[in-house]
């Protein structure tokens, strides 16, 4: 059965299915999760497929805290690991997101956003967890947050999420929304070898020379699999280069700065955006997730009516793609930021704006998608 699926190159599938395909393509062999709408199909897909993958492990845990904990354990043991959840479960995961940042465990967390706060709207889309993905766990930390706007992108961004996680030894959060996760459309599954798959760098020195958290040019220390002979201490406490707890200011500073630097200095690699008709635009939309699809149509409709509109589609949300957004703010006098929240990415756009452009927001928090017409209105109104 599994081999039949593998040879099938095109599917009519939903975003959640695409995440499963992307994860398996990336070499993910460990999934721990807890059922929650609207992300459950990812767990179901992994539960069905992983038993057929060599050494593939699926485990249903008792809650989302345990799910991410198990994924961290598997990551330390050398696996490419992931979990998926939705709003309430994502809130529970915040503790372990901080732990994964601190111990630099590569893994992928998919959060299919639904209406909140609290139990909210379990079956309706929202984009209310954007700032939570960035700042939800306590303490100052750097993290990578990605998004996807259609089914094909769900697969691509899942692969990207695993690649970034492995390359930068960090948890990566992939934010979907209920519409993107449940929309069914054509999905092309690339063959193995067609896409670039990255894996963490293992230490090349003998175990007794290994310094687990040694700084280097990239700021990403090599990571051994537990049991491979490189014994070291893993702790959520601030630690020195040997992994031992420390509160010496110089060692604390060095650790946290490196954890920021290892991600922030590679902003050009991480900050993925797609520009559509922005070159000559007088008004630009900055959007992400399913809203970016509405925005694209709105831009086309505006052009038909003689307004030179453009779209900057954000695929990476954090580290915030400042250079790309600044370029739009500099060339377009008007910028519109539609979001299914009260203004979480528009805060970032306004932060980098510095009076360059007039920034308008379009917000919806009623569990309904933002339509092209809603975005078109502020595009036409000069």
């Amino acid at each position, binding site marked *: 059965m599994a*081999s039949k699926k593998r040879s099938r190159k095109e599917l009519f599938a939903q975003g959640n299915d695409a995440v499963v395909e992307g994860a398996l393509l990336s070499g993910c062999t460990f999934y721990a999760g807890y059922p929650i709408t609207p992300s459950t199909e990812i767990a179901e897909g992994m539960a069905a497929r992983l*038993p057929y993958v060599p050494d593939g492990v699926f485990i249903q*845990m*008792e809650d989302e*805290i345990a799910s991410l904990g198990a994924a961290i354990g598997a990551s330390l*043991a050398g696996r490419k690991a992931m979990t998926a959840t939705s709003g309430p479960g994502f809130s529970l995961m915040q*503790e372990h997101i901080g732990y994964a940042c601190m111990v630099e465990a590569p893994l992928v967390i998919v959060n299919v956003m639904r209406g909140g706060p609290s139990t909210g709207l379990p079956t309706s889309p929202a984009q209310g967890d954007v700032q939570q993905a960035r700042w939800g766990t306590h303490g100052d930390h750097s993290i990578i947050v990605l998004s996807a706007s259609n089914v094909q992108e769900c697969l691509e961004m899942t692969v990207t999420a695993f690649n970034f996680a492995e390359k930068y030894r960090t948890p990566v959060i992939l934010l979907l929304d209920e519409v993107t996760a449940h929309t069914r459309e054509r999905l092309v599954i690339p063959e193995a070898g067609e896409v670039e798959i990255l894996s963490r760098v293992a230490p090349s020195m003998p175990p007794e020379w290994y310094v687990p958290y040694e700084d280097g040019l990239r700021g990403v220390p090599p990571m051994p699999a537990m*049991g491979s002979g490189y*014994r070291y201490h893993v702790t959520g406490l601030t630690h020195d280069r040997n992994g031992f*707890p420390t509160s010496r200011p110089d060692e604390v500073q060095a650790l946290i700065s490196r954890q920021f630097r290892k991600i922030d200095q590679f902003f050009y690699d991480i900050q993925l955006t797609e520009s559509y008709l922005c070159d000559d635009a007088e008004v630009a939309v900055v959007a992400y997730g399913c809203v970016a699809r509405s925005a694209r149509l709105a831009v086309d409709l505006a052009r038909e009516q003689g307004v030179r509109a453009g779209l900057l589609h954000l695929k990476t949300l954090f580290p915030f793609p400042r250079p790309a957004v600044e370029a739009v703010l500099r060339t377009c006098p008007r910028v519109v930021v539609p979001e299914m929240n009260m203004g979480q990415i528009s805060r970032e756009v306004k932060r980098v704006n510095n009076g360059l452009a007039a920034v308008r927001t379009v917000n919806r928090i009623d569990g309904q998608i933002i339509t092209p017409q809603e975005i078109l209105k502020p595009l036409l109104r000069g």
Partner: protein
Amino acid sequence: MAAITELIHDYLRHNKKFPHVLCAGCGHGIVLGALIRSIHSLGLSKDDVVLVAGIGCSGRVAVYVDFNTVHTCHGRALTVATGIKMANPKLKVIALMGDGDALAIGGNHFIHAARRNIGITALVLNNSIYGMTGGQASPASPTGSMSTTTPLGQLERSFDVVDLGLACGAGYVARATAMHALLLGKLLEEALTRPGFCLVEVRTPCPTQYGRKNGFKTAVEMYRWYKERAVKRERWDSLPEDQRAQSFPIGVFRDAPQPGLEERYYAACSRVQEKTSCQQSQ
């Protein structure tokens, strides 16, 4: 004695900054010593042993020993340990927890790890108090005991770790105290060789936080209390009711291990994989 010290030094991390964080009279060092001796006598390779600890005084113990060591978040040792064991079943995974760690904040993980029978040796260092934060009541604090958060005496009932483990289906359940180091070593050896979820509770004194608030003048007094109150399980069973209330049983409470989840999972996977490859070749 010299031989024991030498052995322990083989397993301590030479590059770790000592002294350790534990108080004078604390039982945690005795437990760690027993654990090292049992690992040594089983001939396990340091590379194959993973010690996963939670938060609290017990959580700090892992850092000193030269195994693969993980210091997790408060209460979450068993979740990370589960991931490690499922990812690499060859590893000998030991979860080291305190009573607040395992029974309060980590209570849900504790009952489910036992229920799913994951192949982990769970070691609960029960000192009946939150020591690291300065002596607050834990789910294992006896009714009537004093702590900074129970100025009227503990009014709640306490968990019995062994009863809880038995009820949740752990295949091996045992209890010792820090006063019974040789028994503890024997129990740990058994727990480390059984498949599935194995639970060993160790009653260990906290003279600094529990003792001072509950009428123990010295650490020695606490150890004496353990020596007097701890009764071999076989003898405890035949004690009259009033004497039972004054003591607690130690020893093995269940030794009926079953294959761990990881074993069952990988076996099930190879069955379906075989079936698939058979169908393909037909």
